[in-house]
């Protein structure tokens, strides 16, 4: 994988991970270009597209788009599931992850991604193994005197919303077949 981007429906970049050395200027240009392309696509379109010499695999979870750039010989479908597994990891860690969690705890999101993917390749696919590493880190950390209030924990869970929407779509499809 060359890079992974996470951005919102409004075109705000929430997370970016580059697995090959890229100049900052090029990064910005690529992000802008890709966001434009992906956000312009309609639902039900295919999740893959060719872009420059790369293949783009993207998927939307509620307000968030997850977007991976992979190489010619890489497998698109399994990349989709890389995205899904990452969402599951975030969800498990934050407990019903929402966009705000990723904004306010961006460093945690990076740590989780690092435990899951390294240099663009999967390090481990087991949810338990990945989260164990993060969990250990949390145990190691010193207790701060007054934990901050968490006013932002009112966001909408992206995975939950995704599941609901998928179910509705399935029901709709079944209804269509009748």
């Amino acid at each position: 994988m060359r890079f992974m981007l996470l951005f919102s429906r409004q075109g705000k970049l929430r997370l970016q991970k580059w697995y090959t050395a890229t100049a900052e200027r090029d990064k910005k240009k690529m992000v802008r270009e890709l966001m434009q392309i992906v956000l312009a696509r309609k639902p039900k379109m295919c999740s893959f597209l060719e872009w420059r010499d790369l293949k783009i695999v993207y998927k939307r979870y509620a307000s968030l788009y997850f977007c991976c750039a992979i190489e010619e010989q890489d497998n698109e479908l399994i990349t989709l599931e890389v995205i899904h597994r990452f969402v599951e990891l975030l969800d498990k860690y934050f407990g019903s992850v929402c966009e705000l969690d990723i904004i306010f705890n961006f460093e945690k999101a990076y740590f989780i991604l690092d435990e899951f993917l390294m240099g663009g390749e999967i390090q481990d696919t087991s949810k338990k193994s990945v989260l164990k590493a993060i969990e250990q880190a949390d145990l190691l950390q010193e207790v701060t005197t007054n934990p901050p209030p968490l006013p932002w924990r009112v966001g909408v869970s992206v995975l939950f919303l995704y599941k609901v929407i998928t179910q509705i779509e399935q029901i709709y499809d079944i209804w269509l077949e009748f």
Partner: protein
Amino acid sequence: MPAVSKGDGMRGLAVFISDIRNCKSKEAEIKRINKELANIRSKFKGDKALDGYSKKKYVCKLLFIFLLGHDIDFGHMEAVNLLSSNKYTEKQIGYLFISVLVNSNSELIRLINNAIKNDLSSRNPTFMCLALHCIANVGSREMAEAFASEIPRILVAGDTMDSVKQSAALCLLRLYKTSPDLVLMGEWTSRVVHLLNDQHMGVVTAAISLITCLSQKNPDEFKTCVSLAVSRLSRIVSSASTDLQDYTYYFVPAPWLSCKLLRLLQCYPPPEDGAVKGRLVECLETILNKAQEPPKSKKVQHSNAKNAILFEAISLIIHYDSEPNLLVRACNQLGQFLQHRETNLRYLALESMCTLASSEFSHEAVKTHIETVINALKTERDVSVRQRAADLLYAMCDRSNAKQIVAEMLSYLETADYSIREEMVLKVAILAEKYAVDYSWYVDTILNLIRIAGDYVSEEVWYRVIQIVINRDDVQGYAAKTVFEALQAPACHENMVKVGGYILGEFGNLIAGDPRSSPLVQFNLLHSKFHLCSVPTRALLLSAYIKFINLFPETKATIQEVLRCDSQIRNSDVELQQRAVEYLKLSSIASTDVLATVLEEMPPFPERESSILAKLKKKKGPGTVSVTDLEDSKREGGELNGGGERGPDTAAMASSNASTPSPSADLLGIRSAAPVGAAPASAGSLLVDVFSEAGPAAPSAAVNDDGFLSSAPPSEDPAPPLPEADELLNKFVCKNNGVLFENQLLQIGIKSEYRQNLGRMYLFYGNKTSVQFASFTTTPQLNVQTKPVEPLVEGGAQIQQVLNIECLTDFSDAPLLNIKFRYGGALQNLTLKLPVTINKFFQPTEMTSHDFFQRWKQLSQPQQEAQKIFKANHGMDTEVLKAKLLGLGSALLDDVDPNPENYVCAGVIQTKGQQVGCLLRLEPNSQAQMYRLTLRCSKDSVSKRLCELLAEQF
């Protein structure tokens, strides 16, 4: 696990992020950020030592600001401090900052490397993992130099924890990708292969990525992985969906590992060992069978994981291309997907089928789906899926269905998305050419292309139709008739005018018998389009007109009238003006015989690879299956244009007059008619012919025939070259235009352009004085047929001379130019070196890092390499260096050299006799202010010469 709430919340950070989110405008945001930056800076600079927590908080804020897209130029030191903290969270933030914001500040890298070294040897697995992550995230060459030998040891050590092994494997992979030369194979390699047998699935998953990459580069050393991979795969495929516990994903056992195993096997040919092969075929059959079973879950994750394995298995089957049974089964499976409800599956099925179409075993099976694919082209709502459908149609096309497919593609073109039109046009053009049984169909198809998508018809396409028409006399009459009809349309595309002009100019006589298309009608038709066309097209039409004069003497008066009118003969465009003047002159002074010779029908083009194919290859990059396939079948069938040898740009050369203002004589064949080569070559390798007198662009005067005869050249011997001639020459190695020479009397300017092995040089001689120069002569010391320049140069005036240059073979000595004139009474005699150097005949070649190093290795004979280490004569500014290297003429390649400080270039030097491939590497050392320059060329004299030339440039 609501880890966040119990966690290390940094209140200040949360407040800052909230503030930023509450900003109503971009300006407010920037203001808030600047305030924060000032605050952090003062905190970092303050006398009070910050505690770890504050440092962590501020570094985190900086990171957040950076990720918002703002520049950060401080905080690195504090981040490095955090690295050496004993508190995990502080260390973690430090590493995160370094990974995201690292720059090549060497001082810092040393500190970072130190911290990493400590963590790697700490035997604390969490610290070791953090360090490995950092190395992988940065992945720079410095990191590779420091750790490439250490990591393999961690990877295969018996007491390394599983989690560390996983990180080590992927870290090593990253380093191998960036600096393969620093990761040395050794005893560890065989032990890495055995990680495929590891009990821990996570370790296998991580290790296999490394093994796959290493196998691609060193297949022999890793051969043993094939049987291990097969047995691992077989165990997974046959396991029940619950066997693998956490490694089962939505009822699919270890989908990621399965895909990776199948991918690894694609690095090798089918296993030779019968038992292994049998087991593998069994696995593949099981995977195909499972596709037919009812799904174990309705969730899309289940079907995606299952199908990911299936597609990877199909890729392997296609890669082996030896099991007809499996190939046909794969094709049938994909056929089912073509009509699947999921867009993703339809897309992938179309894509995979494209490669299946190139296998002889499955080509026919793929063809049975033609109707579905055509339907997809028409009805898919998503352009990327339609694009795949178009690709597949192209791949499945053969003689039996060509007419149907070309017709469908043409009709799709009318509504196709703009982004893919050009490629579609190329494909239609190629198919039409490749499967043309009768050429009238081919001509019709191309003209239709121009009509439907004229804007997207690139030069290659219309060059090609002209090549084919010229080479095949059975289609010339038809082509003339068809273009004549097509031009009747009130609005026709400029490309149609070009094709029409060229073809009528060559073959208009074939339809001139019909009074409806009599010569004058043809001419008037063409000329009615003239005013709407761009300069290159007008230039082409002018050439067509002069050809008409030869074909139909009765049109001579009309055409001369047209050429003579002010809008032609005084056209502000030099090229058009020159043509009008020359053609008018030619038609009035040359006898019919001379005219007939000069304006003879174009000789057939040499049969070479289609220029369109070359273009499509360039577009798609090398290795695209459909293109290779096309080439292959071409070689077998010897269909339309026979031989497949590479000879780019036949057409571009032949009709270059239409596209560029360079050698205008090509189309008309003047070049061959002009008497050149009378004297034996003195410099041996360069042929310069000076046949145009002071060109029409020279402001001095109109062309004057008397100039040919007046004043005999002075009899004195040419002076020896000026002492500074070499220095002057060096100024022009990397540029084509500028002032070559200047003294109190004379200034000589140069403009030159090169294309392949040809060049044209304009020399401008300016008289800086107010007094006339008399007996002005210039003599290039070469094999030339010279017409002298104007013998008198008025004070303050400038005259121009044009040299046409052809590079016959490679050379080291620049040709000399001798100039003599009388200023006052004194004879001035000076000799310069003409700035023609071998690099002017460079054609840039783009290539990937892999190709570059492969070729680099191929050129490994000692005499093919020339190297020089020298002190920098000028500043070592990157942009200046880049500009110079680009000026050199070769392609400057990015992302090839693992060290981003270095420059590498590649190109081909075109001489008449041969092509010389050249690779260049320039390694600056800014500390020592030195360079090391290395050249490797397929011809040793070229390496040597280029090295000499370039060493003077930096």
